[in-house]
């Protein structure tokens, strides 16, 4: 076992001259029950970050049970066989630790940050609920978190200006049987319908060690950390294999125009397209295109709409990457007295320009430089690093994909950006959503003759 510590000499290495190379060292092993484990040693601060990723999310939900993967995430904090309800948080806090969890379409993450002397505690807590959640599960626990989650939906969507827009976009961007069609937070009716037996079935299907990967990063001795993982997870049973999930391709065949009235002062335009999945060809080009269009004051849309014409309050663009397929978004809030038709016209002009001519070399370099700098920032926080190791492992099989990820951006040529804009942002297959003030449908983006 001494061998391991030799492999993990430096937290990460970065050449000070010439081509920078970002590399995060790690060791990886798989437990007999199928749990993949990745260890990363970094003694900058005496903290450990534990990130446990289950490959399950709202994309795995059944019709009539939308929001269940996320509700289940909440239920995971309601105690397990050896952890009475409430103790998960109490014990961690008493050790100086924090925790949280997050659910997306494809993934549910549980994470703890703790002083490194307390590493055993999160391992005990995570192994207990991975192995023995159902031993203490009750109907009442499910009901308690159902109310919390409904309030989460009210607080993060219904009581937020423009809060329903992302849900409306996904409803229109994906056909009803596509797993990205429904929102991760779920509908109120489906949250009401979730039952105790759903919890049992979901846990047995997806919360098995072979469907999870555990990253421990920070101030660890890898030999001891490995022993601790082996100890705490040794009695977690293997469970049944997870059923394979088909990956459907989403592709619109028409432009869909949607108008939604909201309690807002200003109309906001959303354009969205189906684009290539995370880490597949086109993904990095579209990330860079988002910066060319709307990253900073000199970006094309910001400069025209906000700076020069001053008909918009803000613009943003993003390639929102995900496992089964991504989305490219452009979002513009109009200033008072301006319609979304006016805004959409300018956006269309700028889209046409970037499809007809490549961006300048400086525009592209500016975007790449911003990406390169952001890679350094990601290494400052041990929890962020742990999350990235798990993300890279899940999507590429290589936890230390940092350099390959950055290389994707550095390899992009201006013509690639132009080509991807032409291929993936067509005018005749996209969602154009107008969110307008109540009673002001005349402000929505009207279809123009082109």
């Amino acid at each position: 076992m001494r061998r391991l510590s030799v492999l993990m000499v430096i937290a990460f290495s970065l050449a000070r001259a010439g081509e920078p190379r970002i590399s995060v060292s790690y060791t990886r092993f798989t437990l007999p029950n199928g749990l993949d484990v990745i260890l990363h040693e970094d003694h900058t601060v005496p903290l450990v970050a534990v990130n446990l990723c289950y490959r399950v999310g709202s994309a795995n939900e059944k019709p009539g049970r939308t929001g269940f993967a996320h509700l289940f995430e909440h239920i995971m904090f309601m105690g397990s066989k050896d952890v009475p309800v409430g103790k998960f948080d109490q014990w961690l806090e008493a050790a100086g630790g924090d925790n949280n969890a997050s659910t997306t379409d494809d993934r549910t993450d549980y994470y703890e940050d703790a002083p490194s002397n307390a590493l055993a505690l999160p391992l005990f807590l995570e192994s207990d609920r991975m192995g023995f959640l159902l031993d203490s599960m009750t109907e009442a626990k499910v009901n308690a978190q159902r109310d919390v989650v409904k309030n989460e939906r009210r607080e993060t969507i219904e009581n937020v200006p423009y809060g329903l827009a992302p849900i409306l976009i996904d409803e229109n961007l994906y056909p009803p049987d596509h797993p990205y069609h429904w929102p991760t937070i779920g509908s109120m009716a489906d949250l009401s319908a979730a039952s105790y037996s759903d919890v049992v079935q979901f846990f047995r299907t997806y919360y098995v060690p072979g469907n999870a990967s555990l990253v421990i990063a920070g101030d660890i001795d890898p030999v001891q950390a490995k022993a601790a993982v082996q100890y705490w997870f040794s009695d977690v049973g293997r469970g049944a294999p997870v059923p394979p999930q088909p990956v459907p391709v989403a592709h619109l065949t028409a432009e869909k125009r949607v108008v939604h009235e909201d309690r807002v002062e200003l109309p906001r335009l959303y354009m969205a397209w189906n684009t290539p999945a995370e880490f597949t060809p086109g993904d990095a080009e579209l990330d860079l295109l988002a910066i060319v269009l709307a990253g900073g004051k000199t970006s094309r849309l910001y400069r025209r709409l906000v700076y020069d014409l001053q008909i918009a309050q803000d613009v943003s663009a993003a390639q929102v990457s995900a496992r089964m397929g991504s989305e490219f978004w452009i979002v513009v809030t109009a200033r008072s007295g301006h319609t979304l038709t006016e805004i959409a016209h300018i956006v269309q002009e700028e889209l046409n320009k970037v499809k007809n001519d490549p961006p300048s070399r400086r525009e592209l370099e500016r975007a790449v430089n911003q990406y390169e700098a952001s890679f350094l920032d990601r290494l400052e926080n041990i929890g962020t690093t742990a999350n990235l190791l798990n993300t890279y492992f899940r999507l590429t099989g290589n936890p230390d994909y940092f350099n390959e990820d950055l290389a994707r951006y550095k390899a992009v040529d201006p013509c690639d950006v132009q080509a991807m804009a032409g291929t993936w942002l067509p005018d005749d297959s996209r969602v154009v959503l107008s969110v307008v003030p109540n009673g002001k449908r005349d402000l929505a983006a009207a279809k123009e003759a082109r």
Partner: protein
Amino acid sequence: MVEKRSRTPHRPCSHSLLILAALATLLAPVLRAQPDRTAPPRPGPPPALRLPPIQHYRLSNGTNVVLLERHSVPIVQINLLVRAGTSMDPAGKGGLASITAAMLTEGAGPRGALEFADAVDYLGAQIAASAGLYTTTVALHAPLSKLDSGLVLLADLVRRPTFLAGELARVRNERLTTILQFRDDPDILASLIFKRTLYGEHPYGAPSMGDAASLASMTVDDLRIFHAAYFVPANTTIIVVGDITGGEFMPKLEKAFGEWGGEAVSPPPVPPVPQKREKTLVLVDRPGAAQSVIRIGRIAAARLTDDYYAIVVMNALLGGPFTSRLNMNLREAHGYSYGASSQFDFLPLPGPFVAAASVQTLVTDKALTEFVNELRGILDPVPDADLERVKNYLALGYTGGFQSVAQIASQLEELAIYGLPDDYFNGYIGRILAVTKSDVERVAHRYINTDDLAFIVVGDRKEIGDRVTALNLAPAKFLTIDDVLGLAPEGGK
């Protein structure tokens, strides 16, 4: 992404470099042994670790420099802290400090607004300026390889902003639109009316951005005079954190800022905070709202009070981390909310204490009752186990605030603003652990007085008005959004 809880648990914003390094003292378990799950594993003792010393320098023009080396990642953070804040806004010119800060990035030295933005973005750096009540922070965050170029831009921005009238007109319109958009956001409405209810016309009660009238009156001369008066070396501390050494970096800083001149003008004194306080309840009507946004509080404590550590511990029990009483009651026990919390905003003069949550409309009155129960409950002696847990949470979890260069720089800002000693961080854990049960009881009685609370509710008056009034918490006042923000300008509706 949808998360377990809505917020990062509150930790006090100043901390230390003394921290627990940690040998993995935990168990050395026998491989393959059946794990002992009968009790949670006990952490080993947290050994102390000291971060590098805080270095002090002075440029030839008198500018103070505080520097801390952090060599783990090749990036650097420079926070240039200027004693120029919104509490110095002249009468009728509310928002001047804020818009002056914003205008620094709209053209400086030889570059116009677009050229300046292009230069910063091309470096992959970030430059931002924003004004608080007493200080403006101009922050540069840059990869080490781009630091020298970034420093030139930072110096231009601080020393040679151009404040062009055309750019001011644009930024003013942007801000007027932002104020219009405040009408959409119940959290912002609640915060604005909470401040105003507590502090009235005092600078602590004013919106930092000003209002439509004060923005309309703003000229580039106002900005130039404000900048010339306060943006001077004697008013400035430059905080540098990152992958540099004092020896190699100080000559560069001297070159960028050493010849910067100007005489400091004394800021007008900030008047004392209001003394006379009355219980009050304000309901801002938002028809059809899915939730009611609640803020409850009062004017509480100044940053340099001797009660500081006891207050931090007491607040953590009441509304800090996940297991705090407000969250356990309103979220976990009753399911009224996605999360409830409280905090003390520590300022040079007594700042506000506030307890907050968004609750489902139909249970607004019940939620208010539970808030009051918890605010009364914290006046009773706290159980030893709860006190231990929360002190350990604050003391042991302390390291988390020192991970990034930006975090460390903002910790150092607090030292500079309040004149705290360099060993302040080292003493922090000990001072938290020294807080006693009677300290907590004393500060609860002193600062969570339930006789003069302000209750703010932003929600659907038709649904909640009668039941909330029936609680008889305080004399009720009913406002509309127009009462809070003034009428929306034509064209905005």
